[in-house]
């Protein structure tokens, strides 16, 4: 059965009542009053303590950071640097030993002087390449150049001693 839906509320009691004028404001006030109140625990004394702690922490961090950085630069070496250092020490000890042996068997001052100059020249080369190695220590070409330099010096000294010894063997003519 068809009917106008507005007619259904004509006799309803509530339909004639008016809301009070400050209804909306009252509602907000009550809502605000019902919220739990947030009390600030921060006070000036507490803030001062935090500020002091932050300043101390930053200062300490700055000191530790710069100090650690310097320590790393001085102490920590990569394994390859350690190996090259060890290899260098081993070679230099051998080169020094062979040099002493060489000057004890060589009776030609000119020969000794030329070898001294050549070894100095190779040592200068080594120092130059060492600087490159410190800046670029995982470049294999630099590592090979360093090892070859040491190897060459040692081999030169061994070869010349062998040469002199052979010349000094029994003379038949």
């Amino acid at each position, binding site marked *: 059965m068809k009917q106008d839906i507005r007619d259904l509320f004509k006799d309803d009691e509530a339909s004639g009542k008016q809301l009070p004028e400050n209804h909306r404001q009252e509602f907000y006030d009550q809502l605000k009053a019902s919220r739990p109140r947030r009390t600030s625990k921060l006070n000036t004394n507490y803030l001062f303590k935090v500020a002091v702690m932050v300043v101390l922490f930053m200062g300490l961090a700055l000191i530790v950071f710069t100090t650690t950085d310097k320590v790393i630069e001085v102490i920590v070496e990569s394994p390859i640097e350690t190996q090259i250092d060890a290899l260098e020490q081993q070679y230099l000890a051998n080169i020094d030993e062979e040099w002493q042996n060489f000057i004890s068997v060589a009776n030609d001052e000119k020969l000794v002087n030329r070898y001294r100059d050549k070894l100095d020249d190779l040592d200068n080369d080594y120092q130059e*390449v060492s600087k*490159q190695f410190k800046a670029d220590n995982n470049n294999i070409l630099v590592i090979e150049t360093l090892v070859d330099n040491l190897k060459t010096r040692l081999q030169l000294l061994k070869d010349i001693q062998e*040469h002199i010894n052979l010349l000094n063997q029994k003379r038949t003519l």
Partner: protein
Amino acid sequence: MKRLTFKIYVLMLITSGSIFAQKKPVYSQSFSIDKNTTAIFNLENTTVSIEESTDGKVHFDYSLEFDGYSKKEIEEQLGEVQVKATKFENHITLVSNSVSKISDVTYAYDAPNGLVLDFDGFQTWNDSIVRKSRDSIIKEIRYNAFGKINAPFKYFGDRFKTMKENGKLKDIKRSDIKILRSKFHIKIPPYLKLKINGKDAQITMRDDSMNELSVVLKRGYFYAKQLINEYNSFKIENANLRAEGIVGGIYNFNNISKGLIGSLQNVKITSEFSKIQIGELKENVSIADFNSEYFFYNWGIDFKRFDLFSEYSKIHLFYPQDNDYSMKVMGNNTKIMYGKDLEINMQPTSKGVKYNMIEMKQKGEGHFSGAINFDIIHGIIYNYNDTFKPSKN
């Protein structure tokens, strides 16, 4: 089947490195030149490959190929390379240098357990010495020049290992190696007069060169095919040299530790502290040496005259095989070895007087190739008996 799939997967992993390598252009420039143009290349920590130009221009084309590098590392590496070519009053100047050494193939290792040298630096090789043909020397030159490039990972793996946690050595993973390939191609016309100053430079001349070259190289290497010009002037120190043939010029070698030369003709060499193998001595070669080791393997049909002036040198001498020749050795305090059993000694003299140690006159049979003259003191000459027959003269 699973095994095959695994192998294919491994192969793909290994080869994928080169597929994903990034090529970055560094520099490109060209100049037109004429027959009066001169050029100077100043190269430091640089590897170049020089070829003949056929269009009358000089071309510089430099790129780097990065394999395993991060974007940031690539930018850093490119920032370390400086290269510039200019032309002023018909003179071209190229300056190329890098903070770090750059080879044809440069390896860098970046892994937590670090790198361990796995070759014996103290090891020396005592190969038996036999006559080598000129062709075998050339083959050796080509292999040594390019073997490192063709199998870079194997080259690296043969020399370096990494360490396991238990302290044992293990092979390095391909993924932990960064490879940098340098491709600096320079093309020059054959009439360009060129001076090269190289320091830690690696120079390869890929074509026969008729250019007038003046080269000063300290550390690195110089590889060449034929170097043909009577005005060539080379000074190479603490470096490697390999040349398939040298015709004309003056060469100064100081500590060439691995010298390989296919043939020499009309060349004057001054050398010291070097080790040089020569495949064939052709016309008019002269060597003045101090304390080097030379290998003279073969002689040209018309070598005409060969002179050696030396002190403290070690000479490995193979005689001319098919033709007549003469030989004269003079000096003092020198030992001549014939195999293991026979040796001739020349006494030292207090006043440095030189004696005729050995003289072999030409036999007068067949074609006369030339005269070998040694002026040697404090030397050792090793004679190899594959052709030697004691002379009746």
